């Protein structure tokens, strides 16, 4: 390998000459640019006749130096001349990063864009819901067109496959509520009220809510990712050209599957949570399951079950809808699939909790307390 790049200053007929030596390549320039920057004043010529190799970076450094000092380049080999010409042609002002706007206007701009985006998303979701209802109407009028196999397949993926994880989660939540409730209520000598707590809170709220969060993370995200990928690979477009409505073939089975499965899974979750709480009571307070169930039947009104079961399909609709909606919004970019999937989960959980608050007020007003 040739030696590292170097230079010496010489006087030639009263004029200053910079004579380069060694290899003017990226690997060998090292601190040459910094040392060159220290050379001040006019330089008449640059002599390259002692250099043995040169690449574009070497050529660039030589050319920049020549321009700054108004020097002429001599002794360049064939290769060096070609490279110098090449970098000369390529010398145009290029920005490395886009211009930054002042922070104040940028923040305002971002707030505005985010607000507009939120509004657009809400409107888009509404329009998507409408389009899905139209597709549903069409399918009801022509039941033959409905994809039964797709629906059954979704029911299995959304529902049956989720039984294990939802069961485990609910069981543990039941234990936690029972344990925390017992500890706190003991202070008032009212630990038997924990049974009210477990029975009512799981049936009314937690069973369905936790299930909704789990399904949003499990299936809502999967819907968005599946449909988004299908949009990128143009599967959705291919479907349309063949005359198959993506609404009927892709969206409807998915949304229906969450609508159907949410009440079933929510009920199952409540049940397992109550069992978890019951087992904890049995073990720690020695209350036999029979008395636990008897007490449960006395304190939990049947309307609590209705509250949970009425909310569940609405939550399912929200999860399925946002998942499919976000998936269908993907345009041509793999990065968007990730963003849309995240958005689907976040929006689904957010909307579920908002709607849940409305339901709480509603049921209180009609007297199902």
């Amino acid at each position, binding site marked *: 390998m040739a030696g590292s790049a170097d230079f010496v200053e010489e006087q030639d007929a009263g004029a200053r000459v910079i004579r380069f030596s060694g290899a003017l390549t990226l690997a060998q320039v090292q601190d040459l640019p910094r040392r060159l920057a220290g050379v001040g004043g006019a330089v008449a010529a640059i002599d390259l006749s002692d250099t043995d190799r040169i690449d574009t970076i070497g050529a660039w450094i030589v050319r920049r130096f020549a321009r700054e000092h108004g020097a002429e380049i001599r002794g360049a080999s064939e290769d060096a001349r070609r490279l110098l010409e090449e970098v000369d042609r390529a010398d145009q002002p290029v920005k*490395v990063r886009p211009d930054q706007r002042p922070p104040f206007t940028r923040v305002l701009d971002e707030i505005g864009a985010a607000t507009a985006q939120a509004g657009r998303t809400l409107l888009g979701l509404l329009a998507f819901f409408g389009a899905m209802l139209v597709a549903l109407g069409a399918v009801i009028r022509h039941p033959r067109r409905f994809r039964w196999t797709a629906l059954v397949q979704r029911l299995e993926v959304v529902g049956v496959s989720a039984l294990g994880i939802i069961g485990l989660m609910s069981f543990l939540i039941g234990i936690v509520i029972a344990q925390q409730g017992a500890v706190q209520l003991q202070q008032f000598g009212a630990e038997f009220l924990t049974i009210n707590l477990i029975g009512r809170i799981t049936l009314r709220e937690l069973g369905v809510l936790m299930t909704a969060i789990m399904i949003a993370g499990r299936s809502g995200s999967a819907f968005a990712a599946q449909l988004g990928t299908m949009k990128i690979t143009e599967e959705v477009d291919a479907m349309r050209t063949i005359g198959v409505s993506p609404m009927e073939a892709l969206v409807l089975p998915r949304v229906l599957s969450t609508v159907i499965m949410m009440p079933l899974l929510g009920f199952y979750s409540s049940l397992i949570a109550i069992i978890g709480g019951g087992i904890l009571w049995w073990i720690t307070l020695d209350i036999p399951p029979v008395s636990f169930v008897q007490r449960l039947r006395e304190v939990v009104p049947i309307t609590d079950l209705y509250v949970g079961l009425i909310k569940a399909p609405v939550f399912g609709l929200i999860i399925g809808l946002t998942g499919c909606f976000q998936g269908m919004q993907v345009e041509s970019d793999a990065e968007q699939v990730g963003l849309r999937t995240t958005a689907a989960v976040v929006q689904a959980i957010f909307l579920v909790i908002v709607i849940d608050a409305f339901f709480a007020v509603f049921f209180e007003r009609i007297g199902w307390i």
Partner: protein
Amino acid sequence: MIDFDKEPPIIRVRGLGNSFGEQVVHEDLDLDVHRGEIIGVVGGSGTGKSVLMRSIIGLQTPDAGEIEVFGEPILGRDLDETVNVRKQWGVLFQGGALFSTLTVAENVQVPLKEFYPDLSPELMNEIAAYKVVMTGLPPEAGPKYPAELSGGMKKRAGLARALALDPQLLFLDEPTAGLDPIGAQRFDELTRSLRDTLGLTVFLITHDLDTLYAICDRVAVLADRKVIAVGTIDELLALDHPWIQEYFKGPRGRMAAIAEDRRQETEGVH
């Protein structure tokens, strides 16, 4: 013409074997690439052209065989040990493989920052700037993000990044795929002029017959899990292999040959 016997080859592949589960892609594959040539690698779909390239650049660990680049063995060594070899090659992946969170100019700076962290930021910006222009991108493309570029511009930006370290060896994976004919022709011209000015050796995977005729010094044909033939197109045409005959003598192959003849006539090239 370059005398190949005098110098050792830049890439030397011997007895390469690759398989994915049951499917054997390469078996006892040999290939030499010499300094200063543009070698085109062709073969039907699934013959392992990209796998060959990935094996050479160390992204794929083969089952058997040995690979030397610049005389240094590649296989079975850590990234740190092959750093001197990796500094001397640039790779252009099919889709450009630009880092999506960086601008085009910042993409070009990534290898510079990685291998030469001592360069001043100012010089690095200048290097990125002239590399961007040199690959035929407009100066406005520098501060743009990859998502804002067309397919052809992404490839040029990817090439600018591959050339960032002034490599001696350039790997191009289907550089003209997905480009319109004018863009593809410009890319071919760019590849050849870079080879001529920078003295590059180019390992070029392609399906594009026009590219093969226009810029490749030699063509390596992958079939039956091996490189079945290497040579100029004329040498390959003299062979009696059915795939080669069909590839070059099919209607598309003939059109490409005619086009190249015309081009040479008008340019007065021999």
